């Protein structure tokens, strides 16, 4: 039983990070209908930028939590700007082009990020300091939960609630949803679709930046090519939830995190990826547009 509880705690933690990253994929897909393959590498970049900022500012603060929050905010700003530039340079010229051209452009951008990280920080792993968050743990019987896990869970939870409110209860949110259903119609209704797309990239990058720093804080080791693996997992989470569907991405992330960690705990970690993808394929065979589904209707 204790394995189960432990794996659920770990799964929820990594699942909420997946969810944060998955939201970036799903929001872009929702409006622009293409897979932003560069998102994973942007997340990796955030982990590096965040660490660098943290190590520079940490000495000026007495409390490392404040240092972390400050670094988080600065990282978010930097990554959002990079996300904006990414859209502006690599995707906007391709709005009218075949969709696969944008996919290849995204793959190219991912390669640029990955190699930029390698050039700046070198090919060897970097480590988030162990004491970045006080190393407190709590016991439940035999299972443990650490302060960092609690922090990740709480922050992710609040961020997702915030996003949910933004998308469902505000004017901007309504415009985002309208642009996702039909860009042309939204434009005719006076919505500035370009501005919406900028907002989406900024939001997606923000969530990605948070996800990237959480990855660093939780696993500590970060490498220049880590973005691809986490990116693919988060993207799978978005698909499982139904791509383009915001609650779907959150659910898909949590679900995938739990699934991964239970497989690793009970079956084997060398086969974990295979199980993940078998699950994904089965879901798509029986629910061709993911669990919560995607809105598409082709009229003939």
């Amino acid at each position, binding site marked *: 039983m204790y394995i189960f509880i432990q794996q659920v705690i770990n799964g929820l933690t990594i699942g909420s990070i997946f969810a944060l990253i998955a939201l970036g994929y799903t929001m872009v897909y929702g409006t622009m209908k293409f897979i932003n393959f560069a998102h994973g590498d942007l997340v990796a970049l955030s982990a590096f930028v965040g660490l660098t900022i943290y190590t520079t500012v940490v000495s000026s603060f007495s409390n490392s939590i404040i240092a972390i929050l400050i670094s988080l905010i600065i990282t978010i700003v930097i990554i959002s700007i990079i996300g904006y530039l990414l859209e502006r340079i690599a995707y906007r010229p391709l709005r009218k082009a075949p969709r696969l*051209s944008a996919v*290849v452009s995204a793959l*190219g951008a991912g*390669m*640029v990020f990955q*190699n930029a990280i390698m050039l700046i920080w070198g090919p060897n792993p970097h480590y988030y300091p162990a004491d970045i968050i006080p190393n407190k743990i709590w016991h439940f019987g035999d299972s443990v939960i650490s302060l960092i896990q609690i922090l990740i869970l709480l922050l992710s939870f609040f961020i997702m609630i915030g996003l949910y409110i933004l998308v469902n209860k505000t004017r901007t949110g309504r415009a985002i949803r309208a642009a996702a259903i039909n860009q042309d119609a939204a434009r005719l209704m006076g919505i500035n679709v370009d501005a919406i797309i900028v907002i989406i990239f900024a939001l997606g990058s923000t969530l990605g930046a948070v996800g990237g720093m959480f990855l660093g804080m939780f696993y500590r080791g970060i490498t220049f090519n880590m973005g691809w693996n986490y990116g693919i997992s988060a993207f799978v989470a978005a698909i499982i939830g139904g791509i383009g569907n915001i609650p779907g991405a959150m659910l898909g992330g949590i679900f995938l995190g739990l699934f991964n960690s239970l497989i690793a705990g009970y079956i084997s970690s060398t086969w974990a990826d295979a199980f993940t*993808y*078998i699950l994904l394929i089965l879901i*798509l*065979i029986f629910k061709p547009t993911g669990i919560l589904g995607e809105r598409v209707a082709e009229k003939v």
Partner: protein
Amino acid sequence: MRKSAIYKYLVFLGILLIYPLFSNSSWLAIGTTFIIYSIVALSQDIVLGKAGMFDMGHAMFFGIGAYISAIMNTVFNIPILWAIPVVVLISAIISVLMAMPTIHLRGDYLLVVTIGFNIIFQQVIKNNVFGLTGGPNGIFGIERPSLFGFEFSSDLSVYYLAFFVLILILIMIKNLETSAVGRAFHYLRLDNLAAQCVGINTRFYRLFAFALGASIASIAGVLFAIQYTVISPESFNLMQSILFFTIVIVGGMSSIPGVLLGTFLMFVLPEIFRDFNTYRYLVFGVMMILTMILRPRGIIPKKFGIIPKYLLKDK
């Protein structure tokens, strides 16, 4: 085929024919791999470029060809060329089994499914199932083939073997373009519903495209095993699939010259700039973005509207 097009192909093949005269052993190896990758890219193009199915796991079939032939050769001592029919059959069967339940999925969903199959395949070979695949180290000691008493033991002979296969594949793809099957691929890519409504069984043709693409990639896999005599999982991972996928989009979907040029740009060019190791992939990424912005349909897009002469009104 237009005369000018024939000349271009002859020039291309002519260059490949005399290329070994001007290359040392490491460049000869790059040349051989270029030919093999071209075959894989052409097969990827059948699935992605012609039939329009977003297959981002094509390296898997390349790998199936390499692994099955290597296992047959090293474990069962079967001459490797004899493996070709077996490899073609098995990969056609596997691809159809994979595609049957998933082929109806819309583009991007199919894309993740094929990524998924590629990753599952990776884990299977890395985990050394049945003790046959050699795990992360792969398989060593694959024998070079012999045919009618001729031993393909030198690298040069392997180069020409691959060259010969490339010519066969090119002829086959040209035939495909001027056949009912090949046109059906284009119709279903451009408008699946309209194609169905003129009576085309699009599901059958999709499965056929998948099986054909998989079989050709697996033949390339056998050649790859012959060339290196050692194979390991990384040569068939997701990154390789993405490479083949990108080659087709950058070169030009369903355009043979486009795919060949794409293979050159995406595989040979980075080899040429090997000395600039640290910067080359950064520049490479930038080039991918720029190419797509400047040539969104690929560098050499496919031209339609080439029909038999006897249809044209005498002008």
